[in-house]
């Protein structure tokens, strides 16, 4: 078995990035003008990378499948972005953010990358404020913070429940500025269909114009994939409908190793599934766990009464409620990390305490927060002996100011009023920690092909902490990639333009065309969504919150059979030419049908539990994830060998020099 070189710079942890930046090669401004870079995806990582590279002088082509770069799914991130500013003077530091992230990731991430992430986090906030991102502020005019799961400080910057939107619009405005200067050529409604490798180096992509259906060749000296995560392999997830793995998967098929594919984040607070028609799930921000308390009834008869509608949740007295997170994890309470909170909800629901018709929901209750805030507010306003009703009224105002848009969204979807009755929530697929393997420079195992943001695997280990995805996307795009890519491109200053007439482009374009023809001409009768939904069910049941050997083996066989059926029976309406969203979807689902199998294979191979990867065979007597550090302190990078079942495991050993590996405890 071969191993991978992560190219981590030598020296003490705190100096690695600084020393590396000082040592890597630069490309002078005149030479940058003759170098082309392609960026696929315009979320936080893609937009920020495209804008930054263009500012530096490179010629950038950026691609997104949406009708505008501003719509990438980073826009939907709600809660916030972490940064080690320590504005609250609560003991935060770069080291503490680094430590929390490694611990939160259950000791399966790379120390040097995480430290760098924590280090540049503070610049992100400075940068965003300079760009006009309207973060929440206190009355004194300074920036406000809140807390997220898995930490004991307040380091999360936010813009109500729309932080992702504001950060993405910031990056989009930087990108727009470069488009107006002609330094970025923007391709909306374009999907990357394949990467093109010439003499061992990535030299371009094949893209498809989703309006005309035409295939296009785009050549460049380097390609950056910032194409997001693959949570939609589960069909139901909090991802946008169009979010897909295809760009990353095509890169994998061309030689880029896929790392830790089974590391999936199941977010504890989402709106439960309401029926078969469901097309996606909606997240209720983790920030709600700052003030909300999670519970189920202690007594089965209360559960039954609530399900039947004969009892309302507010009628269950305090002593008959099981605030199970506070009971099991007194130190972190409702703010335990996501994987822990999700498993705890599943445990209660599996034990028969779920509070909706499907038995898959728990309560997220704001009654005590409303009362607490109301009392404070009454005191501030100098009200003497306010009535309970007055207190609750004042409390609701405070809660509305903090979480109003989330409460409105909940009401819109469920028709329940969360100010009056506890919300019902259940875990749902939200984020994928796994992704393309990258070295310290964010380069994949294909030279010249980079991966940034959720598309890579590097920083979150086996579980991501809340408000860290936005941080990583912008860190990669604004502050890491623009430096590290120069080291590689320094070899290309005399290469001249790459020709898209090379036989490698021709061959790649032909393969893409053949595949599209196959899908569109297939004489099947079943819509694409049908297969996607069935794949999602297999993945959720066997490779979701809990996994075991038998289930995973069965899932692999089921996915193989489903894939075969897909190619026989799928019906893709319309033509290859012209606007055809069903065809776009068919190509993406075909790739999910391969990825799903690799995820199960990876989960089966990792005989331990860690973070979001919970193997039922490996747990402590209290039901917590039981790691096997002796045998599994490595990154599982998979090399493509023609089929997912033939993928070969390549290991990157994880070395912890600065943090002691411990059983993760939030008790």
């Amino acid at each position, binding site marked *: 078995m071969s191993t991978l070189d992560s190219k981590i710079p030598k020296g003490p942890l705190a100096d690695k990035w600084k020393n590396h930046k000082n040592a890597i090669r630069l490309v002078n401004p005149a030479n940058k003008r003759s170098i082309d870079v392609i960026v696929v995806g315009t979320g936080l990582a893609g937009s920020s990378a495209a804008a930054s590279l263009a500012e530096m002088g490179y010629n950038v082509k950026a691609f997104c499948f949406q009708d*505008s770069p501003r*719509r990438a*799914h980073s826009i939907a991130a709600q809660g916030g972005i972490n940064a080690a500013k320590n504005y609250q003077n609560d003991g935060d530091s770069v080291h503490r953010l680094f430590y929390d992230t490694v611990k939160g990731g259950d000791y399966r991430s790379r120390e040097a990358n995480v430290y760098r992430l924590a280090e540049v986090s503070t610049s992100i906030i400075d940068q965003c404020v*300079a*760009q*006009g991102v*309207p973060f929440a502020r206190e009355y004194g005019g300074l920036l406000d913070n809140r807390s997220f799961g898995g930490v004991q400080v307040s380091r999360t910057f936010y813009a109500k429940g729309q932080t992702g939107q504001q950060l993405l619009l910031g990056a989009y405005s930087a990108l727009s500025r470069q488009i107006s200067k002609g330094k970025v050529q923007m391709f909306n409604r374009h999907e990357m269909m394949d990467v093109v490798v010439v003499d061992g180096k990535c030299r371009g992509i094949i893209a498809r114009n989703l309006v005309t259906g035409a295939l296009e060749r785009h050549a460049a000296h380097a390609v950056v994939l910032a194409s997001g995560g693959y949570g939609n392999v589960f069909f139901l997830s909090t991802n946008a409908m169009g979010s897909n793995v295809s760009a990353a998967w095509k890169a994998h098929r061309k030689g880029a190793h896929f790392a830790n594919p089974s590391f999936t984040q199941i977010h504890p607070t989402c709106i439960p599934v309401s029926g078969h028609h469901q097309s*996606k799930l909606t997240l209720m921000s983790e920030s709600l766990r700052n003030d909300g308390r999670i519970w189920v009834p202690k007594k089965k008869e209360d559960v039954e009464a609530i399900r039947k509608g004969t009892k309302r949740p507010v009628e269950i007295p305090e002593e008959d409620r099981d605030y199970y997170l506070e009971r099991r994890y007194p130190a972190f309470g409702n703010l335990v990390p996501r994987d822990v909170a999700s498993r705890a909800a599943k445990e209660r629901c599996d034990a028969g305490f779920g509070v909706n018709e499907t038995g898959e929901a728990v309560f997220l209750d704001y009654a005590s927060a409303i009362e607490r805030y109301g009392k404070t507010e009454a005191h501030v306003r100098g009200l003497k002996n306010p009535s309970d009703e007055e207190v609750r009224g004042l409390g609701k105002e405070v809660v509305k100011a903090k979480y109003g848009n989330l409460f409105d969204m909940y009401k819109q979807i469920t028709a329940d009023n969360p100010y009056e009755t506890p919300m019902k929530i259940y875990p749902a697929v939200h984020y994928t920690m796994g992704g393309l393997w990258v070295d310290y420079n964010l380069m994949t195992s294909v030279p010249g092909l980079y991966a940034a943001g959720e598309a890579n695997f590097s920083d979150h280990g086996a579980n991501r902490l809340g408000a860290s995805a936005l941080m990583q996307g912008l860190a990669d795009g604004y502050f890491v990639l623009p430096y590290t890519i120069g080291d590689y491109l320094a070899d290309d200053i005399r290469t001249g333009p790459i020709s898209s007439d090379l036989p490698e482009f021709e061959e790649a374009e032909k393969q893409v065309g053949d595949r599209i023809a196959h899908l569109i001409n297939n004489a099947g009768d079943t819509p694409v969504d049908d297969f996607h939904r069935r794949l999602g069910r297999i993945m959720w049941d066997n490779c979701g919150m809990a996994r075991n050997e038998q289930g995973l083996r069965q899932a692999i066989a089921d996915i193989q059979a489903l894939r075969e059926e897909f190619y026989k029976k799928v019906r893709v*309406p319309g033509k290859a030419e012209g606007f055809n969203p069903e065809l776009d979807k068919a190509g993406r689902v075909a790739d999910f049908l391969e990825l799903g199998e690799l995820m199960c294979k990876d989960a089966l191979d990792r005989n331990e539990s860690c973070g979001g990867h919970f193997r039922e065979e490996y747990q402590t007597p209290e039901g917590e994830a039981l790691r096997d550090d002796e045998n599994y302190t490595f990154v599982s990078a998979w090399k493509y060998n023609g089929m997912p079942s033939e993928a070969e495991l390549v290991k990157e050993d994880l070395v912890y020099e600065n943090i002691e590996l411990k059983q993760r405890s939030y008790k």
Partner: protein
Amino acid sequence: MDLTLKIWRQDGPDNPGRMETYPVSGVSADMSFLEMMDMLNDQLIREGKDPVAFDHDCREGICGMCSMFINGEAHGPGRGVTTCQLHMRSFQDGETIYIEPWRAAAFPVVKDLAVDRSAFDRVIQAGGYISVNTSGETLDANAIPVPKEDADAAFNAATCIGCGACVATCKNSSAMLFVSAKVSQFALLPQGQPERLSRAKRMVEQMDKEGFGNCTNTGACAVECPKGIDLSNIARMNRDYLAATLKGE
């Protein structure tokens, strides 16, 4: 519930369009409007017919991609919601629902209900940014205090999702609400002051170039805006535009 859908079908920007009628049955009140459309398309594909093309992505009201004109209203009945957040409980059994694309000269139809809104991108490219490089070597984020009131007002303007409901609603297809929201976000923050006037001027000029209509202060845009963007933003933009013109920016 059982519904009759009257849907605008159009093959491309240069083809003539037509309304077509589709019955759908077994619609659940808990479905979102787009899930009802998914159901229709599933039915059409199984029947070997061409499914209805429409834009959608996040399905939680924030990406701004969904864009349907339902029963004569942008994003349908209800206030403060996008099409994807609209649920079928807002309709009644037996109802006939009319579904059309955004209609504006500056938003040509791509196919059926999907339109091309890249004119909005070009308006932003004309000046919807603060000209600062992404080096990270800027002031500390807390170096300039911003009064909470201003920060909140800037945030409110910045919540525009760029869906185009304002344009679709306006009888003149004016984009003033969209453009003024971005102008206001920066005009309300200290960081946006250096380019304040020239920004307003450049963005308004691009807006005119794209073929959006003029504003006649009817205010329908703000009523139908799913994010509640306020009309006062338009007044702010007009003031800055006038100042820019007088100063010869």
